[in-house]
Each structure stands twice: as structure tokens, then as C-alpha cells.
């Protein structure tokens, strides 16, 4: 272990699936809990995690996911991932498991992370591309920023892309 501690991280969340969003949130919260400065930057489908009407309805991507398994540990044939209801079912199972280990739903987690002093930013290019406006976002979203501003804010930080 190096003596030099990590002082600041910027975490980019680019995916909008449940399993695409949570690692970034857990890392951002974990950073603040260790006294590390942290910012979250949401881009492309990752923006769904800070869009009011979508943030609590994220789903596990079951299509094309060879890691999927049945609760008994047997591999799930990738074909099954596309059947109606599979994504909803897997999502609700995962949410139940997360609740057990005290991982909050996205909306509550975002409040927690924001209150912890983590900056929450949305990508300008995506906002324009998807025709979104400020009022589509949760109140914790601090600002819509360009990629240039993203690098400015990330000065001295380790950038983590998820």
C-alpha cells in the first residue's frame, strides 16, 4: 500500500441499467465516507440515474449478459434474458438483496451522496441530445456541464469511468 492517499475522485456513470449505475454510486459514497473529495458525472444513459421520473425504475440488463444465474447458482441461458418479465423479476430480486445489506434505492442514495458533499453533474451533450431540461432532474443535480467544465472540475482528481 502506498503512503500517498487518494484525495479526490471524479466518477463517470455512463450506463443506465441498475448494475451500470450502482457501482458508481457506491464508490462515490464510499469516497466521501473516507474523507475523499468526490464528484459524480452522469452521461448518456447514465443520466437516467438523476432523472426524477426514471431514477427509481432502473432495471437490470438481462439481455446479452452471460453472467446471469438462477438463484441456485445454475447459469441462465442468455436467450432467456430477453423473455418478457425476466428483467423485472431479476431487478426486483436484486433490489431485495441490496436492501438486506442496506444499499438504498437510487433516489434515497442520491440524497445521501449529495448530503455527503459529493457534486452531482449532468453531461451537456447528452442533455441536448435527449432534449432534456433542468426540471427533468432530481433536486440533487447541481449543474449541467460541458466536457471542458468536467475536466476543470476534475483537476487533481482520479477519473473513474463506469
Amino acid at each position: 500500500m502506498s503512503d500517498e492517499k487518494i484525495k479526490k475522485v471524479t466518477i463517470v456513470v455512463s450506463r443506465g441499467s441498475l448494475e451500470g449505475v450502482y457501482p458508481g454510486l457506491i464508490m462515490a459514497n464510499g469516497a466521501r465516507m473516507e474523507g475523499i473529495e468526490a464528484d459524480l458525472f452522469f452521461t448518456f444513459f447514465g443520466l437516467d440515474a438523476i432523472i426524477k421520473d426514471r431514477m427509481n425504475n432502473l432495471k437490470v440488463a438481462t439481455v446479452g449478459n452471460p453472467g446471469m444465474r438462477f438463484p441456485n447458482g445454475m447459469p441462465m441461458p442468455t436467450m432467456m434474458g430477453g423473455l418478457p418479465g425476466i428483467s423485472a423479476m431479476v431487478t426486483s430480486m436484486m433490489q431485495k438483496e441490496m436492501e438486506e445489506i442496506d444499499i438504498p434505492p437510487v433516489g434515497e442514495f442520491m440524497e445521501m451522496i449529495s448530503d455527503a458533499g459529493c457534486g452531482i453533474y449532468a453531461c451537456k451533450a447528452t442533455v441536448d441530445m435527449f432534449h432534456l431540461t433542468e426540471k427533468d432532474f432530481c433536486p440533487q443535480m447541481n449543474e449541467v456541464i460541458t466536457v471542458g467544465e468536467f475536466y476543470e472540475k476534475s483537476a487533481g482528481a482520479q477519473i473513474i469511468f463506469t
Partner: protein
Amino acid sequence: MTTKEIAGKQVELDADGHLVNVNDWSDEVAKALALEEEITEINDKHMQVINFMRKEFETSGSVPSIRKITKQSGVNTKEMYSLFPGGPARKAAKIGGLPKPKGCI
């Protein structure tokens, strides 16, 4: 594990500097441990968190997550960060004489 004199008492500490035995804890030990974390004064709010965490530890055997603390102790997330700067759950656990929190939240 090391033995150290804290507040005039020999206590055992783990590798992270947390008390090994929760019963070694007292208000004086809490004050001394707080100083190690650069918290110079323990007020009622600190104690509200610590008492909640100790009670939870006693009943469940594990240090509560920050989510649980902020939902059930009456101290919110923002307050937690200002009471225990740079490590809300970890510092509160240390000052409260509990082991380092094991969860990721």
C-alpha cells in the same frame, strides 16, 4: 493488537486503533479517542450517534451502516459529516469504542 494507556487505563487496540473490548469504553476513553481524530469536543449530538451505535452493536453484533445511523438515530447525513469530519461512520465507531465498520455503505 497493541496495548496502550488511554485516559489512565491500559486498553487493547486492534490494527486500526479501535478498542478490542467494547467494555473498555468510557466517556474519558471516548474523549481521548476523539482527540486522536482531531475532534476536540464531544457534544450531545456526538453522544446521540455513539449511544445509538453502541446499542445497535450490542443487539445485532455489528456496527450499523451510515444509512441506518441517519435513519434511526435522529442525526442526519449532513450533521454526521460535520460531527465526524472526513470519516463519519469510521470515526464515530472508533470514538464509540466499536470495531471499524465492515459494510460498503
